[in-house]
């Protein structure tokens, strides 16, 4: 099969869904003329024109507002917020409207909108362009949060997100945009809310998403040499997270490590950790351990940045601490 980057996979999904469904439209800052800051929307403007591919002013609240209103009117808006860090500027539209309109108006409205945004550290982009934002949104019932780690997952999950009738926050890790993998040319879907075992193992479950999945895989390879067989669980969706895949994996391995790039305190790893303890406390051989960023913003200096976010070595170390 053909090998393409995650950026190309996202771009292809957008093309195919716009082709398939004329209620899909794309908008955001610099998405038309320039094809997006990272290039995810390249070609769409030429192909689908001004009406369905729109450059907006720097107006994040308006962008998310358009998504809300258009979804309520029955379209399938796909908005881009250039950096996840700027989701702060449309936080109200997501938390108080996208996530609640269906509920507070008692099911009268579907909210089939997608907000795509680039997240994560590694680009030496400093404290306001490098954040992991998922945990800002995990205590907001009504919202889905999708977080792919591979081009294949990104394409399938983006197509599912666009077709889904719930609001979806679609997270794209900047450091994965150029990551390549096999991706079918035809459109396909991956169910939201389903994780995937990216590497089977029997001694410990390493639960991760986005970039940390790849670090978990590296760690698993290292651990293998040391006689520890690690199973890598890629959640792929953060909300609703795949409880079953976690239970299945951990009931086999009896040990788990959760990894994410956001700071540890108050991060989403806490949810996974407490879920596992609540459900399988008596089966566990050791406590679930979180591997995460330090409790500080992401600094600009490359060495500091790399120090602050979790490394493969940190995962290896955490796993070993369980034996």
């Amino acid at each position, binding site marked *: 099969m053909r090998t393409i980057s995650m950026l190309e996979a996202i771009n292809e999904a957008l093309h195919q869904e716009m082709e398939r469904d004329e209620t899909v439209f794309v908008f955001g800052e610099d998405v038309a003329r320039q094809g997006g800051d990272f290039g995810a929307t390249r070609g769409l403007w030429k192909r689908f024109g001004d009406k369905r591919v729109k450059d907006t002013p720097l*107006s994040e609240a308006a962008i*998310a*507002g358009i998504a809300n209103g258009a979804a309520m009117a029955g*379209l399938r808006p796909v908005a881009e917020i250039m950096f996840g860090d700027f989701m702060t500027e449309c936080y109200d539209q997501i938390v*108080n409207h996208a996530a609640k309109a*269906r*509920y*507070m108006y*008692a099911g009268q409205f579907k909210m089939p909108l997608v907000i795509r945004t680039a997240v994560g550290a590694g680009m030496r982009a400093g404290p306001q362009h490098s954040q992991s934002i998922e945990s800002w949104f995990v205590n907001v019932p009504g919202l889905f949060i999708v977080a792919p780690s591979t081009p294949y997952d990104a394409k399938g999950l983006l197509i599912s997100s666009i077709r889904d009738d719930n609001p979806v926050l679609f997270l794209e890790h900047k450091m994965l945009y150029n990551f390549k993998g096999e991706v079918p040319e035809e459109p396909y879907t991956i169910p939201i809310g389903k994780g995937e075992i990216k590497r089977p193992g029997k001694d410990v479950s390493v639960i991760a998403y986005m970039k940390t999945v790849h670090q978990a895989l590296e760690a698993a390879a290292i651990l293998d040499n040391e006689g520890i067989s690690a199973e890598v669980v890629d959640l792929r969706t953060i909300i609703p997270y795949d409880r079953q895949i976690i239970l299945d994996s951990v009931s086999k391995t009896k040990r788990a490590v959760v990894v994410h790039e956001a700071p540890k305190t108050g991060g989403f790893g806490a949810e996974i950790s407490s879920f596992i303890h609540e459900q399988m406390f008596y089966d566990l051989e050791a406590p679930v351990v979180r591997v995460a960023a330090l409790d500080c913003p992401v600094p600009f200096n490359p060495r500091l940045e790399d120090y602050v976010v979790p490394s493969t070595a940190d995962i290896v170390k955490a796993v070993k601490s369980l034996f």
Partner: protein
Amino acid sequence: MALSNEDLIKMCRQMVYVRKFEEHIEEEFKAGNIPGWCHLGIGQEAIQVACHWALRKDDYYFYDHRNKVMTLIAGTDPKAVMAECFGKKTGICKGKGGEMHIADKSVGNMGNNEIQGANLAISLGTAVASQIRGTDQVTAVFFGDGTTGRGEFHEGLNLAAVWKLPIVYCCANNLYAISTPHREAHAVEDIADLARAYGIPAEVVDGNDAVAVYEAMTRAVQHVRSKKGPYFLEFKTYRWQGHFVGDPAANRPEEEVAYWKARCPIKRMKERLISEGIMSEADFERMSEEVEQEIHELIKYAHESPEPSLEEAVEDVYYGLEVAAR
């Protein structure tokens, strides 16, 4: 389209209807039958009623806390609105929204969202939808003077102007945001002047004169429906009571309140109809009593309506995904 005598009578009746609807809500609230808060729009009936006369059934409407009764004029079943205020299962939002969250998709009411200003962003979306679909549907968004302090006011007006979106902005300038006088919170006396700066045609309208409101709204809608871009109306008006039932609104000068009560939109309409020989005092009394009866029925309905069942609390969180109950 000029209003016929019949139209004027009907309009007058609608104004009486929404007034009495709210007066009864107030009474029920004070009696402890309505939970939460009540924001009454008494004094603003001309806007609440007449604007709708210039709109079409398939248009999109965004109201706010002060104007939820507009949905009655749009065509929502009044029983369902009253029941919603009571939080009953038969409410338009099944008791989950309450008076602050009344939407009725079937009539184009997209929800009186209670984050002030948020609808100024959301309304862009229905307007974009009309544009993408190529329909001539108009989006009308209603908000108060205070709400123009929010950032979304700017983001919304700017985008509406650049993209020539089909939006009628209807600002009810009732001089206050809760306790804060408009003048002390806003750099412009007439908000319309701010709208004009974006190149949006704007009018200042006597918001207590239903006919003037209707005429201005007709001009606005015509402009917008013919795809010339947004239009802005600032209705000068006044709310007679506090921000919500129970708020003494102690800081407002008594003379000011008296001045505006004297300019009651219903009295105005009634006097007009009587002086033009369209209606007699007795006709008005008869009509008022009729309305009173109708509202009584609503109240009765709301009282007798069942409570939602507990499991409904976790319904409609997601589409196609269940949330666990206790």
